[in-house]
């Protein structure tokens, strides 16, 4: 097992955004979580290719041009478009310095499963069906490469610091938080946009059907991005973080050991954070909707934390978003803090497990935003349990 300690600092979250099947922006997402809005849309008209189901947790009305203007958006692959919008909204939500000289110290750590699989496949398809195998569409070549969303976001927002793409699949949320903490701790960046992006496509839909054979798990899409910085540095400048990622732990084992691997990760992350299991108010679990994995995650969580903490299952709202699952879990935790002032300063846990035997956890302390920074429609006294 490997864990965050030593040179890796507590991360402050100083802004965030989401582009999701249930709402856009931190406020829109928070409102959807508060009211328990579930995704689900008619996707039958989204693509020329057939889909295995007529409905999914996609965002059929998402148009990059609505947020970014027309120029430079016509030929974007969907993953890159989602990332461009999510990173733009995240930057608009933060008071972190990312302009001028600070742009050289600001970067991105973006999670994915395998980039825009649709773009890769369509590019590959052209090599088979065109008259000559090289008659591919060159403007789609960057999008066929996994790091296009992160690279394009840096170009659009002029972020000249670290630019990283983490192919983490279900573990991507934890990966980007852990990697981001080490990059900041090692002096490689001051401000990072950390999150993930996943697109809906026929390719994803048919693959998802094969992976969830026998289960009813709607496929989703979207992106959630957090602005993270060194928490100590943020506070020393009189700024207030919305949340802090106190510690994390990540382990791998055989696929049959997942419950134990997760339990050990949670215990270790809590110890590193200096937090007792009885202090944890909630657990945002990954939830695959597939029996074996969910059973293992549940067993690991119960073994480490008992039955006390509230369980937050945001996947029931946004659908299976693969690499974006972890970031949506974190977004859901922050949404609860925004809507329930009673949670101010309290600690929660985020867990993820993968079909490949990986399991991990992060410990998050959420804060009440200073008065006036929470949009009125989300300022509700009633805490919500999913």
């Amino acid at each position, binding site marked *: 097992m490997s864990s965050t300690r030593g040179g890796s600092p507590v991360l402050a979250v100083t802004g965030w955004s989401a582009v999701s099947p249930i709402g856009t922006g931190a406020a829109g997402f928070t409102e959807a979580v508060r009211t328990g809005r579930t995704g689900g849309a008619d996707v039958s008209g989204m693509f020329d290719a057939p889909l295995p189901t007529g409905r999914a947790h996609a965002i059929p009305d998402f148009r990059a041009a609505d947020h970014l203007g*027309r*120029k*430079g*958006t*016509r*030929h974007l692959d969907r993953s890159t478009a989602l990332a461009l919008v999510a990173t733009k909204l995240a930057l608009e939500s933060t008071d972190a310095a990312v302009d001028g000289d600070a742009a050289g110290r600001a970067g991105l750590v973006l999670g994915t499963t395998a980039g825009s699989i649709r773009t890769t496949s369509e590019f590959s398809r052209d090599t088979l069906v*065109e*008259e000559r195998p090289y*008659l*591919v*569409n*060159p*403007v789609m*070549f*960057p999008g066929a490469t996994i790091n296009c969303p992160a690279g394009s976001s840096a170009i659009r927002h002029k972020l000249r610091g670290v630019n990283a793409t983490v192919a983490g699949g279900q573990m991507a949320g934890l990966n980007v938080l852990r990697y981001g903490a080490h990059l900041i701790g090692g002096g490689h960046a001051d401000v990072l946009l950390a999150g993930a992006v996943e697109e809906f496509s026929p390719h994803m839909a048919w693959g998802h059907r094969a992976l969830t054979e026998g289960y009813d798990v709607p496929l989703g899409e979207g992106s959630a991005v957090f602005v993270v910085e060194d928490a100590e540095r943020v506070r020393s400048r009189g700024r207030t973080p919305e949340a802090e990622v106190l510690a994390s732990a990540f382990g791998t084992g055989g696929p049959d050991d997942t419950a134990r691997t997760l339990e050990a990760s949670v215990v270790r992350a809590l110890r590193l954070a200096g937090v007792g299991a009885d202090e944890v108010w909630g657990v945002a679990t990954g939830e695959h909707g597939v029996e074996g994995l969910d059973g293992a995650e549940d067993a690991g969580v119960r073994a480490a934390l008992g039955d006390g903490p509230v369980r937050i299952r945001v996947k029931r709202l946004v659908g299976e978003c693969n690499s974006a699952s972890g970031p949506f879990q974190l977004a859901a935790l922050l949404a609860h803090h925004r809507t329930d002032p009673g949670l101010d300063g309290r600690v929660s846990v985020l867990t993820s497990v993968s079909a490949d035997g990986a399991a991990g956890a992060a410990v998050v302390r959420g804060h009440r935003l200073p008065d006036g920074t929470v949009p009125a429609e989300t300022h509700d006294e009633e805490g919500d349990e999913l």
Partner: protein
Amino acid sequence: MTATDTALIDELREIVADVLEVEPEEISETGLFSEEHEADSLQAIEVLARIEKTLRIAVPQTELPDMGSLDGVYRVVSRYTEGNA
């Protein structure tokens, strides 16, 4: 200029405009794509690739330097469509 020429120029203008994400009427005959529309090298290759696919001709990449304006594109393409028309 023949009707065929005009039709070809219009077709090329459509292709270039789509690649550069502007309206066809914004593409002048002699203006450089790089100067008037901030076209980059990838978009230049994209123009060439679209032309090859649409017109079913083969244009070597060594012609790219002469394809910086609509006029230049037309002249290069004309050479590779001779006999095909």
